[in-house]
C-alpha cells in the first residue's frame, strides 16, 4: 500500500471513529416508538446516540387531551433519559423530547405509543 493510500485510510478512519461528539438522536425508546402495550408502563425511557447534558434535556408525556401524565423532572444518565408516569388508562400518549448533546448540539422529536384496554 502506498504512503498516500495509508494516509488517506488513516485520515478517513480517524475522522469517522474518533470524533468526540455529534448530534444526539433517539436510538430507541421504551415503550417502543409507535407501539401498543397491553399493560400501562410506569416510565418512559429514551436511549440516545450521544451523551446528554442533563440541565438542558427534557421530556414530557401527555395524553390525547394534552394533559401531562409524566411525573415531572426526568433523570438523565449518560445517553439515557427516563421519566416516571402516572397510572395510565387505555389511550394514546405523546412523548415530546428535546436534548442537548455534550457538544452542545440540540435535537428534538416526538412520538406516540398506545396503552391497550
Amino acid at each position, binding site marked *: *500500500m*502506498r504512503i*498516500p*493510500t495509508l494516509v*488517506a*485510510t488513516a*485520515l*478517513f*478512519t480517524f*475522522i*469517522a*471513529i474518533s*470524533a*468526540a*461528539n*455529534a*448530534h*444526539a*438522536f*433517539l*436510538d*430507541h*425508546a421504551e415503550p*417502543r*416508538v*409507535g*407501539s401498543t402495550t397491553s399493560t400501562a408502563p410506569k416510565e418512559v425511557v429514551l436511549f440516545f*446516540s*450521544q451523551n446528554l*447534558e442533563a440541565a*438542558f434535556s*427534557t421530556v*414530557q408525556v401527555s395524553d390525547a387531551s394534552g394533559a401531562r401524565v409524566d411525573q415531572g423532572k426526568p433523570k438523565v444518565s449518560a445517553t439515557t433519559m427516563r421519566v416516571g408516569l402516572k397510572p395510565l388508562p387505555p389511550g394514546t400518549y405523546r412523548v*415530546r423530547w*428535546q436534548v*442537548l448533546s455534550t*457538544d*452542545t*448540539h*440540540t*435535537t*428534538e*422529536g*416526538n*412520538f*406516540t405509543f398506545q396503552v391497550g384496554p
Partner: protein
Amino acid sequence: MSRHLLHTLALAGFTAVAFTSDAFAHCFVGARFLPATLATDDPCVADEMSLPTVAWSKTADVPPASQLDLSFDFSKRITENFGVTISQGWTSLRQADGTLTQGFGNFETTFQYQILKDREHELAILSGLIVDWGHTGSTGSGFATDFSLVTPTLYFGKGFGDLPSSFGGFRAFAVTGQVGYQIPTSSFDFTQNAFIPQQLVYGASLQYSMPYLKSEIIDLGLPDFINHLIPIIEVSLTTPVSNNFGNPYTTTGTVNPGVIWVGSYFQVGLEAMVPINRQSGTGVGVIGQLHLYLDDMFPSTIGQPLFGGTSSTRKLTF
C-alpha cells in the same frame, strides 16, 4: 484520483461504518433531518464538505463520449445564517475514437442566507447566489469558459411530519428543491460563435427517511443499516429561457433514483443518472458522494460559524 485512493476511500468508509455509533447529523428542521443531496443542494447553511463527488456518464454526442467528473466542495458558515461554499470540478472526456480531454471547470462560489427554519412544520427556505468565475478553469479544454455565470437561487425543504398521525408512514416523506436563474456575464461566445443563453436551473428531490420513521412514527425493529437509509429520487434540469437565438429551447437533465446512508459524522450517497431525453445523455450514468459533517466532527473549531458561534446552549422550549 488514483484507483488506489478510490479503493482506500471505499475501505475507509466501510471501516468507519463498522465502528461508528448510531447518530445522524446536519440539516435539521425540528425533528426532521434533510441530508445533503447529490444533484441539488439541501436548504440549509452548514459546515460541511463533499470529498469527493464522482460521476460517470455518456454524453449525448453520436457516438457518445465517456465522461468522468470529480468534484469537491467545502461549505463554511460565516454567521449562524450566512454561509459560503467553494467548489471545484475536474472532468475527463474520452471520445469514441480514444481521444482524451481533461481539465478543470471554473472555480465556483456560492453565498447562501438562511431565510426561514420553521421547526414545527419542518420547513426550511434558503436564498443563494452561485458565481461561476470565468477564466479560472481549463478554458483550452472546453471545460471552463471565459465568461462568468451568476445564478440567484432559492432553495426549500419540507418534511411531512406535521401531518396528522393518521397518515402513518407517509409522514416520513420530505421534499427539497431549488430554482435558479443563470445569467452569463457575456451574451455571445466568439470562440464557439454562438449566443450564450440565460437559463433556468432547477431541481427537486423526494426522499423517504428511515431514521425519521424509526424515531418519530414507528420502530419496526428493522436492521440498523436499514434504519440509516434515506431512499431518494432527484431531478436536475436546465432550460434555456432567453438569448438562445438559433437554438432549440430544449430542457435537459437527469432523473436520479438512489439512496443515501446517513451516519454520525458523514453520509454516503449513490444514485443512477437517467437522462430525460436524447439531448441529456446516452444511457444510464452513476454518481456517488462522500459527504462530511464538519460541525459534528469538529464542533468547537471549524464546525462553528466564524462569527457568533452557535454553541451557546439553547433554552428548552417546552
